[in-house]
């Protein structure tokens, strides 16, 4: 087998012009297929990456207010499919008016409870605790014209025992949240601050802040929560689990489903094109090999004459076909790399750093090489058997 393979390779390289045409023909089919798959994989991959990496897609928001005790939250904390959960007070009791020295406007902002591990604030190392520190949303910071380290005056008002009361609290801006964390005017604060505001608005006193009022006697219930699944795939499971407990939640499941559907549709289109391309390539290579066997009738007969067996004669066109496959694949990979670099450069402004719109993994190249060799072998099989059927005496007739 080694001897006939060596002869097949020698013949192949001796006729390098014709062999180059076979290689170019293969690269012309395989190159665009790789680029197409690179685009499909890159685009869908980016969308999936965005889905996976954007924590907002893993958030489950309660539709209505409820009554959740600490025990319920402890149960949630214990689940492995939950990345982050924190109780939330009533929405109506969760806003505060802020006033900065640098802006004439008083800004009403929504307070969002946070704690260490908040997926929306993963870029911020120091998460506020206690009563006097907040992280402002970008929009609120812009309107208040403040920067980290500035101090703003926070105030809320209530009507208590027939009197209007307003309390103030000095809040230090610990950081400005990224725009993706919260688009509206808001501030992330500790749950204690939110509980203090809620208690104050309910007429209770907050001794820690020296706000007067009645004593809190009933056990605390929370009206809502902020909840994030560990992965996008956990969101649906959590949603179902919460629905079973009559807790209605909103998710971005629709977006996830859209991307997954897009992936399926693009995959179907890609595979249709790849199948047509592969079939076209196999037929074209098969036809070329068939014609080649006819052209090499005499040489193959000489090989039979000097004693190569039928099996070895079948191998001859197969080896040549596999060499074509390997070189065609190498050329296609070079073509793909040049094109993908150009496409990614063109789209660089539209993409996040490190993102690529046309991208393939090493395994894709390995699989494409194996498929190409397989298609080439199948295409060469017919011509191999045709070669084996040549009677040496017939092939040598032109003597």
């Amino acid at each position: 087998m080694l001897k006939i393979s060596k002869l097949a390779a020698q013949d192949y390289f001796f006729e390098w012009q014709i062999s180059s045409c076979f290689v170019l023909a293969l690269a012309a089919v395989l190159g665009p297929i790789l680029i197409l798959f690179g685009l499909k994989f890159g685009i869908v991959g980016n969308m999936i990456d965005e889905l996976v990496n954007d924590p907002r897609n893993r958030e489950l928001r309660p539709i209505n207010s409820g009554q959740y005790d600490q025990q319920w939250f402890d149960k949630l904390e214990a689940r492995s499919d939950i990345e982050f959960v924190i109780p939330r007070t009533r929405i109506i009791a969760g806003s505060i008016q802020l006033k900065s020295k640098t802006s004439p406007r008083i800004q009403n902002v929504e307070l969002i409870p946070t704690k260490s591990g908040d997926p929306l604030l993963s870029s911020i190392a120091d998460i506020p605790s206690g009563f006097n520190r907040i992280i402002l949303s970008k929009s609120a910071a812009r309107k208040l014209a403040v920067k980290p380290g500035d101090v703003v005056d926070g105030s809320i008002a209530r009507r208590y025992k027939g009197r209007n009361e307003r309390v103030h609290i000095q809040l230090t801006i610990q950081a400005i949240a990224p725009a993706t964390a919260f688009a509206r005017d808001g501030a992330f604060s500790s749950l204690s601050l939110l509980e203090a505001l809620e208690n104050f608005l309910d007429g209770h006193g907050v001794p820690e802040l020296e706000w007067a009022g009645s004593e809190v006697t009933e056990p605390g219930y929370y009206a809502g929560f902020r909840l994030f699944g560990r992965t996008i795939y956990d969101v649906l499971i959590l949603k179902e689990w919460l629905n079973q407990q009559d807790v209605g939640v909103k998710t971005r499941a629709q977006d996830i489903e859209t991307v997954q559907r897009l992936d399926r549709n693009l995959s179907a289109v890609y595979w249709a094109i790849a199948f047509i391309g592969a079939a076209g390539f196999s037929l074209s290579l098969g036809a070329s090999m068939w014609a080649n066997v006819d052209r090499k009738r005499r040489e193959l007969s000489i090989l039979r004459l000097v004693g190569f067996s039928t099996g070895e004669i079948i191998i001859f066109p197969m080896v040549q076909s596999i060499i074509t496959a390997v070189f065609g694949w190498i050329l296609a990979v070079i073509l793909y790399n040049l094109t993908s670099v150009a496409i990614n450069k063109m789209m660089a402004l539209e993409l996040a750093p490190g993102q690529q719109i046309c991208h393939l993994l090493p395994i894709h190249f390995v699989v494409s090489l194996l498929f190409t060799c397989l298609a080439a072998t199948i295409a060469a099989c017919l011509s191999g058997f045709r070669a084996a059927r040549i009677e040496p005496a017939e092939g040598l007739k032109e003597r």
Partner: protein
Amino acid sequence: MRQDQQLNPFEKPSILFDLREAKKNRESEGVAFRLSIPKLQIFQGEKIALIGDSGSGKSTLLDMLALLSRPSSSTRFRFCPVMTAESNKSELVDIGMQWRKGRINYLTALRKQYIGYVMQTGGLLPYLNIKDNIGLSRNVLGLPDDGTVTELGRHLKIERHFNKFPNSLSIGERQRVAIARALAHKPAVVIADEPTASLDPYAAKTTMNLFISLVDEMGITLIIASHAWEHLKSFGFKSLKHQTQHLGDITESIVSG
């Protein structure tokens, strides 16, 4: 090589080919042709000349003897190449039976080991250099380079072309390469189909002289189809009896010897 145990030994152990009532029918472009061989015995070490006009079935007979072409029928077709050095035994093979059993690869293996073939136009592989072309028959058998190829090249005056490819050689030089290839693995028999037909008379004579002297030196049986009987006669060739007749639409060529 496998020995066929079912056959009786030859009366004469030096017989190389033994054919009885062998026929080969061919039809080409509506013209039917039959080669009939009532009896043909070729002995080891003989030099056989097959003389006849074009289309008289010379190549057909050579193809049958080279195990390239299956006889349409035969009552006996035996091949007994020379004793092998290792076993000191002769191979005795019923070729007719091997064809009937469709053992093409077995026949190919016999040809590979025991038969050298020189074609009218050389039949060199264009992608191998001259040295590799000559060494091809040895290479297929897995024989080591023992200097035979170089020696043949020196004898046939083609040594200086060893690194060239066939397309850069003259027709005469290519024929000498083909002769060297047929002899390189030291076969039992060399079959040559008009090996000098495409050469000018001087080159033809020179090449034939070199060829025959090498065959004599190596003690190899030679079966050659040629038109140059006068030249071959002087080397002690035996000519096969040859007769052509027309039977209706069929042209029949009868060869015996």
